[in-house]
């Protein structure tokens, strides 16, 4: 492994000060499950690894009627096992439980999954359907970025090399809503998504009309993307099986996948249609039961 120094600051001011070396010299680390392997493979060559787990702001964790705040260094396992997250943000609980093995989930964090910005990141589609926002601290102060504008491309985010992601903020889910995340992998456990879809559906309990639809796709574009046209098709309508199928077909239009070792572009598009339908159908079933 490349030789580097290690620091684990216990306050944010010190962490930000150390980040100002910038330009690839300093790499922020939360769980380390991506970074340590990338350094070993010399895909990243830090002179300083900045362990942010001891910075209190990155361990913030608060859920309630106001929504959910998850510090960037909170491990996936804590999120996926939280009854509040399972109840109010099921797609997030489901996706956080799919990030690698138990061993990985005990270290890997929501913040790291987002900052690593793999198009296949399992938690990204879920965060997109909940319209999460990223709270970022940098040399110029703090700012909030909607997650939709956070991902710029594979491994590229709205963070500069001098910024630190503090937390993810999820607004309360809409009333009478359900959400679900599904991905396809060729085996049962421990793999990277060939394609993934998170869906959120909210219905007016009186009229049965869809008051909000959110569909987000993973591993089928340079960044996780929303399927806006499919969402628009559903909103205002009373969902039927035929309408869900039409929306699922339309979700494919937002997919611009590549062909690689995990699957061809055509196969990924076919998967998106199936996964979009299944996630929507499951939301509908839950809402009507």
């Amino acid at each position, binding site marked *: 492994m490349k*030789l580097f*120094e*290690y620091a684990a600051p216990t306050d944010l001011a010190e962490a930000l000060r150390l980040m100002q070396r910038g330009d690839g010299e300093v790499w922020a680390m939360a769980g*380390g499950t991506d970074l340590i392997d990338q350094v070993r493979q010399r895909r990243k060559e830090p002179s300083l*690894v900045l362990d942010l787990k001891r910075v209190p702001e990155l361990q913030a964790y608060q859920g309630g009627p106001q929504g959910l705040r998850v510090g960037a260094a909170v491990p996936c396992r804590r999120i996926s096992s939280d009854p509040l997250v399972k109840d109010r943000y099921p797609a997030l609980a489901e996706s956080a439980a799919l990030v*690698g*093995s*138990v*061993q990985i989930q005990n270290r890997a964090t929501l913040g790291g999954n987002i900052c690593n910005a793999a198009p296949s990141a399992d938690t990204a589609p879920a965060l997109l359907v909940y319209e999460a926002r990223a709270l970022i601290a940098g040399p110029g102060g703090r700012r909030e970025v909607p997650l939709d504008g956070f991902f710029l491309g594979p491994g590229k985010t709205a963070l500069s090399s001098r910024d630190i992601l503090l937390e993810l903020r999820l607004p309360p889910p809409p009333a009478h809503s359900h959400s679900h995340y599904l991905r396809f992998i060729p085996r049962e456990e*421990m793999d990277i998504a060939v394609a993934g879809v998170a869906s959120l559906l909210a219905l007016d309990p009186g009229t049965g009309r869809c008051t909000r639809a959110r569909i987000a796709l993973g591993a089928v574009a340079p960044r996780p993307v929303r399927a806006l046209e499919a969402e628009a098709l559903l909103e205002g309508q009373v969902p039927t099986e035929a309408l869900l199928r039409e929306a699922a077909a339309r979700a494919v239009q937002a997919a611009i996948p590549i062909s690689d070792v995990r699957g061809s572009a055509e196969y990924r598009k076919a998967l998106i249609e199936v996964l979009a339908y299944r996630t929507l159908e499951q939301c509908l079933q839950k809402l009507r039961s």
Partner: protein
Amino acid sequence: MALRIPPRIPLRTTINGDPYELMVKPYQTLLEALRDEAGLTGTKEGCGNGNCGSCTVLFNGLPVNSCLVLAPEAQDGHIVTVEGLAKDGRLDPLQKAFSQHGALQCGICTPGFLMAARAILDSNPHPSEKVIRAGIAGNLCRCTGYDKIVRAIMAVARGEVD
């Protein structure tokens, strides 16, 4: 330009109940520190990138891949390795069960499986087979086909091993 070697970092940590003070390299993994600095070679490196689970240890009670933890991250932490399973000369029931069921062949993955299994039972003393299989999904064995490993853990879960 002369290569500057980052200085070692003093690491205070508890391993298998014993306090340790080690001088670790900042770029050393916990796995390397356990083996090379603490002399505890029971923990094995398989893949070295978090896929195989061979290097699983308990870190503050939770199973982690020690190849994906930097040694200095263990500051003030509590580590349990396979050497910490046997108590007062008595094997952990899991160790007995693995032996009785022939749940190993080459043995490289075994310490990792034992620690992953210990973590499953610590959080749920009577897990179903499904829970066991999910709990060891991050541990690869290229010899046994898993069946004997699952049977051994099931035997302990059912209280058949003391």
